[in-house]
C-alpha cells in the first residue's frame, strides 16, 4: 500500500489552517466535480480530493494522520503500525454516499466506516433502496438494440453481521434508439426490502463510447466525408457509411467544403428517427510530378477564379 500525502493532494502546507484547507478543497471540488468537470480523470481526482478533505477537516483524523505521516514519503510502501489507532476514536460523520469509495489507504487507517454506513440502509425494515449504475455502450448497440452485461457490487450482510461485497451480474436489454444520458429502470432489481416489503428499483444510466466515425447530437449522427475537388465540382455518387450500413449519397454539382447533406431517418431510431448529417470536407491533391503541376497550372489558366473578391470591396 502506498502512502498518500493528503496535504499535497489539496495543495496546502502541513500547517494550513482549517480555513485554508476548506478553501483549497472547495476550489478543487469545483474543478473536478464529475458533474461539471471536463477533465478526463475528474472522477478519480474528485474522489482523492474528497478523501484528503475528509481526513484533514476532521481534527481527530488530522492529528492521527500527522503522527503517522512523519517520516514517510508519498508513494512509499507503507503499513500502519500494529498499535495504530490506539488512543483515537474516530467518530465518522464524513462523506455522504461517496464515502464508500475511499482508497484502501484510507480504509486501513480509519476503517470501512463509510462503506458500512452506506450499505446500512439497504438492510432496513421498509421497502428496499433504489440502486443506480452506469453502463457504457456503443452507438451500434443503441441503433440495433442489444443485450449487455453489467456487473454490480452488492453489499450483503453475513450471518455474524458483517458487510460483504458480492458481485452480481445482470444481462440488460438495451432499448433501440436509447440516447446518451437516458436511464433504464429495472423494477425490483434494487436492494431487497425488509420482511414483506418490496425490493427497490435499479436505474441504469447509459453513456456512449466515443465512435471512430460518428459524432452524436440527440438522435442525429454526424459524419465527416472527405471528397475530391472534382467530386465537389462535377457532382458524384459516393458510398457513405451509416449505422444501418452503406448507402449511396449524391454529392451535388458545385458542392462546397463544410456543406452539410442530410440522410433523412438514418440517425438513431425513434419517433421521429434521427437524421445522419454528412459534412463534406474537401481534400486537395498534392501535385507529385511535373505533369501534376502542369495540370494545376492549366486549371488556373483555364478557370480563373478570385475566391477573395469579397475581401477587396
Amino acid at each position, binding site marked *: 500500500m502506498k502512502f498518500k500525502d493528503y496535504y499535497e493532494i489539496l495543495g496546502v502546507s502541513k500547517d494550513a489552517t482549517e480555513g485554508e484547507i476548506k478553501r483549497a478543497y*472547495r476550489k478543487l*471540488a*469545483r474543478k473536478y*466535480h464529475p*458533474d*461539471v468537470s471536463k477533465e478526463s480523470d475528474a472522477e478519480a481526482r*474528485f474522489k482523492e480530493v*474528497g478523501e484528503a478533505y475528509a481526513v484533514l477537516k476532521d481534527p481527530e483524523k488530522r492529528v492521527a494522520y500527522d503522527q503517522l505521516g512523519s517520516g514517510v514519503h508519498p508513494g512509499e510502501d507503507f503499513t500502519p503500525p500494529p498499535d495504530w489507532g490506539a488512543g483515537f476514536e474516530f467518530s465518522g460523520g464524513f462523506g*455522504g*454516499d*461517496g464515502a464508500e469509495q475511499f482508497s484502501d489507504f484510507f480504509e486501513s487507517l480509519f476503517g470501512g466506516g463509510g462503506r458500512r454506513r452506506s450499505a446500512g*440502509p439497504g438492510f432496513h425494515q421498509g*421497502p428496499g*433502496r*433504489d440502486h*443506480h449504475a452506469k453502463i457504457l455502450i456503443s452507438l451500434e448497440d443503441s441503433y440495433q438494440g442489444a*443485450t449487455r452485461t453489467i456487473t454490480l457490487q452488492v453489499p450483503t450482510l453475513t450471518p455474524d453481521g458483517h458487510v460483504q461485497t*458480492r*458481485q*452480481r*451480474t*445482470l*444481462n*440488460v*436489454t438495451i*432499448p433501440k434508439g*436509447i*440516447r446518451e*444520458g*437516458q*436511464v*433504464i*429502470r*429495472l*423494477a425490483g*432489481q434494487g436492494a431487497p426490502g425488509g420482511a414483506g416489503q418490496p425490493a*427497490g*428499483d*435499479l*436505474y*441504469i*444510466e447509459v453513456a456512449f463510447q466515443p465512435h471512430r466515425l460518428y*459524432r452524436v*447530437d440527440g438522435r442525429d449522427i*454526424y459524419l*465527416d466525408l472527405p471528397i475530391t475537388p472534382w467530386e465537389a465540382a462535377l457532382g458524384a455518387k459516393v458510398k457513405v457509411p451509416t449505422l444501418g450500413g452503406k448507402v449511396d449519397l449524391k454529392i451535388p454539382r458545385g458542392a462546397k*467544403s*463544410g456543406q452539410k447533406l442530410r440522410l433523412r431517418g438514418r440517425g438513431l431510431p425513434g419517433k421521429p428517427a434521427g437524421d445522419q*448529417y454528412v*459534412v463534406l*470536407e474537401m481534400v486537395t491533391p498534392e501535385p507529385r510530378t511535373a505533369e501534376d503541376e502542369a495540370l494545376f497550372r492549366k486549371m488556373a489558366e483555364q478557370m480563373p477564379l478570385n475566391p477573395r473578391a469579397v475581401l477587396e470591396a
Partner: protein
Amino acid sequence: MSTQLTVLAGVLLDENAELSLEDLCRACGVERMVLVEMVQEGLLEPVDVRLAPWRFQGDALRRARTALRLRRDLEVNFAGIAMILDLLDEIDDLETRLRRLEGRFE
C-alpha cells in the same frame, strides 16, 4: 461469491415515460420536501405543476440526482444549482456545435 445471471428488459425513461413524485423521491433517496423545493426553484418541472399529484418526465431523474450531488459536494443551494445546470446545458450545446464545426476549420 455467487453470480446470478438474468436477462432483464427495463423501462426506458425518455420524455414519454413519467415518474411520480414518490418514484422520484425513492430513486433519489430524499424526502418530498426536497423535491418540492427543487420545483419551487425552477430546477425541476412537473409535467403540469397545477395538477396534483405531480408527474415528471423521465429525464427529471438525472437532473434531480445531479442537483443533489452538487448540493452535497459543493454546498451550493438549489437556486445556484438551477443556474449551474442551465449553464452546463448551454455548454453542452455549444460543444456539440463546436465539434460539428471543427472539421470545417482544421
